[in-house]
């Protein structure tokens, strides 16, 4: 017996799907994914997890930082500026634009001997190798030995694309501005009669293997390198064509390592590029013993016009690369801050816990 009443009866027919058989198919699946019940990790910041984390970070970072700092400090490094802007500098004479080929010598003293392999860099300042117009002014196909690109370089190389109706090889502003000072190093073995012992500077092995073997390749074909480049001309600023960069066939043309190093543009206006390697001779003798050295410079590269500076750097390396005190200091700082934060949070947590307990009671 029932007294129910349904006034709004179906007019347009029942629901499109009658209950019963169809019900099964329309009921959403009861999967964890569809019902948003996937097992989940909810990172809840509790004193039990946060405080130990801070302490542990502190305890790990500070030793790492000290380690890096000490390592970095053990690296020997010396920088010699030979721009010659100071009148007293031996290279001052080379600043004059009239001098075409200029030699100057700078002497310096190593207070401590350099052990292990020593790297010789040249450093440039205020040189915008990262300028967009400069960076894109190259043709990687040409440098990769592509014959068509050799004779018809990319438009990106403009205005260093063609000269004297011939395509420039290598084209572009980067290649055109290649660093062309020559640096030589001599050890003064006898100070009284100035006996100079030349230090062997290795020019191969300064470029990345991939650059030397994959990215940079001379144009294919038989014959000498000169023939391969015969329809091209040298970059305007160069004194000699690309096939005369070196006498060694394996270090000439596009695969000249000095050239390759230069072509890897620097990210910042002050940079250093690897110039030569000074290999360790034996375990007994330091690679560069302490003493007086002469740096002979063939001064070709003009930087005076844009207030640039030129440097020669000698440096040893460690497991983590060159001298870099910043990383160690940063590690020590972050580690200390973390540890301190841990202490501060511990105190706050301790204080607050007492007060919050009482607060809960009052509610």
């Amino acid at each position, binding site marked *: *017996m*029932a*007294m*129910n*009443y*349904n*006034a*709004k*009866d179906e*007019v*347009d027919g029942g629901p499109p*799907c*009658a209950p019963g058989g169809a*019900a099964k198919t*329309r*009921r*959403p699946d009861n999967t964890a994914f569809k*019902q948003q019940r*996937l*097992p*989940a990790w*909810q*990172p809840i*910041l509790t004193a039990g997890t*946060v405080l130990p984390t*801070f302490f542990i970070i502190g305890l790990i*970072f500070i030793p790492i930082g000290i380690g*890096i700092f000490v390592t970095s400090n053990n690296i020997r490094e010396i920088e010699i500026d030979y721009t010659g802007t100071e009148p007293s500098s031996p290279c001052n004479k080379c600043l004059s634009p009239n001098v075409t080929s200029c030699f100057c010598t700078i002497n310096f003293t190593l207070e401590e001997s350099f052990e292990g392999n020593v790297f010789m860099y040249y450093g440039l300042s205020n*040189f*915008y190798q*990262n*300028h*967009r117009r*400069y960076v894109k002014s190259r043709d*990687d*196909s040409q440098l990769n030995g592509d014959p068509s690109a050799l004779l018809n370089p990319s*438009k990106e190389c403009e*205005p*260093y694309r063609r000269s004297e109706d011939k395509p420039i090889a290598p084209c572009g*502003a980067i290649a055109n*501005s290649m660093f062309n000072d020559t640096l030589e190093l001599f050890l003064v073995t006898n100070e009284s009669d100035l006996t100079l012992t030349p230090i062997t500077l290795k020019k191969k092995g300064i470029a990345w293997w*991939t650059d030397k073997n*994959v*990215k940079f390749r001379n144009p294919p074909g038989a014959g000498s390198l000169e023939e391969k480049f015969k329809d091209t001309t040298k970059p305007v600023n160069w004194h000699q064509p690309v096939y005369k960069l070196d006498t060694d066939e394996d270090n000439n043309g596009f695969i000249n390592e000095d050239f390759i190093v230069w072509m890897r543009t620097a990210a910042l206006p002050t940079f250093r590029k690897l110039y030569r390697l000074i290999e360790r001779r034996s375990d007994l003798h330091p690679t560069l013993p302490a003493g007086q050295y002469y740096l002979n410079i063939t001064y070709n590269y*003009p930087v005076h*016009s*844009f*207030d640039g500076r030129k440097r020669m750097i000698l440096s040893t390396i460690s*497991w*983590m*690369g060159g001298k*870099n005190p910043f*990383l160690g200091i*940063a590690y020590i700082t*972050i580690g200390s*801050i*973390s540890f301190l934060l841990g202490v501060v*949070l511990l105190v706050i947590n301790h204080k*607050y816990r007492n007060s919050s307990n009482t607060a809960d009671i009052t*509610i």
Partner: protein
Amino acid sequence: RMFCNKKKLIEVERVVKANDREYNEQFQYTDNRIHTSKYNILTFLPINLFEQFQRVANAYFLFLLILQLIPEISSLTWFTTIVPLVLVVSMTAVKDATDDYFRHKSDNQVNNRQSEVLINSKLQNEKWMNVKVGDIIKLENNQFVAADLLLLSSSEPHGLCYIETAELDGETNLKVRQALSVTSELGADISRLARFDGIVVCEAPNNKLDKFTGVLSWKESKHTLSNQKIILRGCVLRNTGWCFGMVLFAGPDTKLMQNSGKTKFKRTSIDKLMNTLVLWIFGFLVCLGIILAIGNSIWENEVGGQFRAFIFWSGGEKSSMLSGFLTFWSYVIILNTVVPISLYVSVEVIRLGHSYFINWDRKMYYSGKAIPAEARTTTLNEELGQIEYVFSDKTGTLTQNIMTFKKCSINGRVYAGELQDDLDQKKEITKKREPVDVSVKSQTEKRLHFFDHSLMESVELGDPKVHEFLRLLALCHTVMSEENSAGQLTYQVQSPDEGALVTAAGNFGFVFKSRTPETITIEELGTLVTYQLLAFLDFNNIRKRMSVIVRNPEGQIKLYSKGADTILFEKLHPSNKDLLSLTSDHLSDFAGEGLRTLAIAYRDLDDKYFKVWQKMLEDADAAVDERDERISGVYEEIERDLMLLGATAVEDKLQEGVIETIASLSLANIKIWVLTGDKQETAINIGYACNMLTDDMDDVFVITGSTAVEVRDEFRKAKENLFGQNNFSNGHVVYEKKRQLESDCGAEDTVTGEYALVINGHSLAHALESDVKNDFLELACMCKTVVCCRVTPLQKAQVVELVKMHRNAVTLAIGDGANDVSMIKSAHIGVGISGQEGLQAVLVSDYSFAQFRYLRRLLLVHGRWSYFRMCKFLCYFFYKNFAFTLVHFWFGFFCGFSAQTVYDQWFITLFNIVYTSLPVLAMGIFDQIALDTSYWTVINHVFIWGSVATYFFILLTMHSNGVFGIFPNQFPFVGNAWHSLSQKCIWLVILLTTVASVMPVVAFRFLKMELYPSLSDKIRRWQKAQKKAKPTHSRRPQTRRSSSRRSGYAFAHQEGYGELITSGKNMRTQNLPPTSGVEKMLYNNASWVENLCEKTADTVNSFSQEKTVRL
């Protein structure tokens, strides 16, 4: 509104000649084919691309692409932009194409519908699209109307025909159309119709649904045509065997198509926020660009000039300025990643994901009807989390629209239904009362049943009061009955309450069988008894009661009356004093439970007195002036000295979980307004039933004014009242301050105490007028609950618009029927209750589900999550892009502001779409809020570590020898990755930066949690406090004993039916053919409907009332 047909000549008037295609062709009227599709195969690409590039984001990226093709500017290669752009554009194009395909399909379906057209004096089946203006077509019952027609003739007398206009205006009640008498004579005579050559001159196509002007010239005479003669496309012919019509407007010219403007594209506030953010960021980008451009000019001047030896520059003398200008654009390109194109795509993907979660939610699946929730719009999810106002329909949304006879009080004794589905009991009863219960069973099986053994016993024992009570229920009503071929009774009722009462009486043995204008036949405990109906004292809103005067077979004359307790109690005979107090106690109990009550009383009349009274009535009826007043005076006269029988309590059954849902929503500070077409009493009653109105409320303002001034005064008074009480309760509040607050409509925060506003449809019409609406809005905003009753669909929409406009709040409208369509459309978010009558509400809604209670989960879980996810996503997204892009700004200071990028081109291209898109998306889609704790699932892990792995994989691939060998110019970074990553320094730096960037955040969050309890803690505490303070939020309202004696009177009844019954107008005395279809049966009382509509000339919609019940 969009006028789809842009004609070369603007049509001023239309001349149509019937049955003369040649004649009509000269005007080149459109035929009946419709196109809602946008493209065809040829036009798709150009039009779609054109449309897509009208979107600001796409246009912006196209612009960037063009910039990048200029070598002087190009700082990035073209593929960095074109890859994502093509991706985005093609994805959108595919989506558009699919949509349009479906539109083509539906167009084809509509265009290929068949209709009978009179061609060459013969009725021929013709596709809709081939119907031409001037054709005469034949429509049959329940057919859709193919074009805008002039009604010529129909199967019904006087050329009447009935149409349902739900598709046009959302009203489901039938409307009547009448043909001209000259044309209705044509009937179904094909040869005469074929000879019909009338010329119609009428208005040009327009979108006004309720107006039509035209003239028919036929046989040398002219006939004016009005809207009454026109059947519009989109209507359905109901209750009419057939009709003939002449096509006046076809296809795109029809009023339906003229009205089909572009559906409003709903945007969420996040969308708007995002757009403003993007604009701001764009402005920021321009600023950065300008700074860098100036930097570049200076650099070129100071440094670059000296650097010419290496960095050529052929810009001439004023080169630095030009260089700066070009650099600006270069930087615009580089920095564009702050506003990445993938943002828009990602947002869409996230919303789609959220929509699927709504569709998949089992907690929103209604197993009763096998209806899952459905997110019909996928772009609004996060808006659900910001809803401030919910506008709800009542019938079918809050209530199940099932009236259940719950309790009754007979002669001072309460018979309460036992609320259980006791199958044994039911079976026992169904056996006893075969003729009724068998048919009832099927309909009511799943519902709660009223059963009371003691009442049954009393009936069987023959308690005269109980018999009289039930007899009254069976006699005093306006229900019409219909017995179909199977002998089943079908009741047609105009108020569902009455249906419940009559059915209840029937179940206890007093079955209403049939009526004629003069008699009522009921079956009393198995025997048929016919009563003579002497008078019908109709119901109206002032009388709040109705009575019948009948003569029983024994010759006794009795007056049976039912009505509002407050009114009826005054009419009682003094001897009823004790019973009265007892019954009114019961009544207030019933009212406290939210039941709808009616008091029941009778009076024995002697013949003489009745004759005298009848004379008075006749006199009054014949009176010319003040007839209504006089009649009601006469009614008063006889309705006195009544003997109280008892009271009934009918429950307008709420849907499951409505009370809890409303409680949770109001806890969430969401305001719920009920907008219903129902009467004030019923609406208030439901308000009480679902705890929106409570007796604890400080005041319930009822606005019933019928002029603008009255309404405003009522508002003002209510407001004064509100502030007055307030000031009284906390005197320190300065009134002036309140006044200030009022103006910016923030006053509701300062109002203590709970208030409610109930406003009538008439008053609402005035309240929505421009000078009153501020008062209305202000008052309404200060009230906890607002109930608007007797509102039309249009008013529903207006109320929503009002709040939307003036409160700047996010609104949601929820409803189930065609009358809610406009409201659903105009609210920010429309929710349709699916599985109810019709589909109109669902079709226009953004979300649909089967039960009101799912709203809670939709808003408080899905909405909230979506909102938080979206916000977090945006933060994360902008963060990563800023971090990524601002490096270039910083680097600008080191590279001579030359727009040189730090990263390689491929990294820039892939950063947003490959490397970082998935982790952000995963967070945006799967994160669950526990406020400041994130939610890491397997998916997050897979995406994050997967992205890292992808990065290294792609990086190493692109920096490998092989790729360089194939494209030396595109991948010049051979060996970079390997050389860099083999440096121990790199890894040390990565570790250091990771820790250094995470540490402050962790410390900050930890501190915040420690020092300031998080919001979730606060909420938990607050809820705890709330629970302690107000234990009244109980599941059932029974526990609440109301101190104030409130009448639970509510009756969904309308005036005018009594007259219809006594006049016999609505009775089909003619032999009705055995009802073949359900539809036929449902609408066979349409003339009654029409008369009623004329009678109750007020605009109140009566759609929910005239429906039938099958027993």
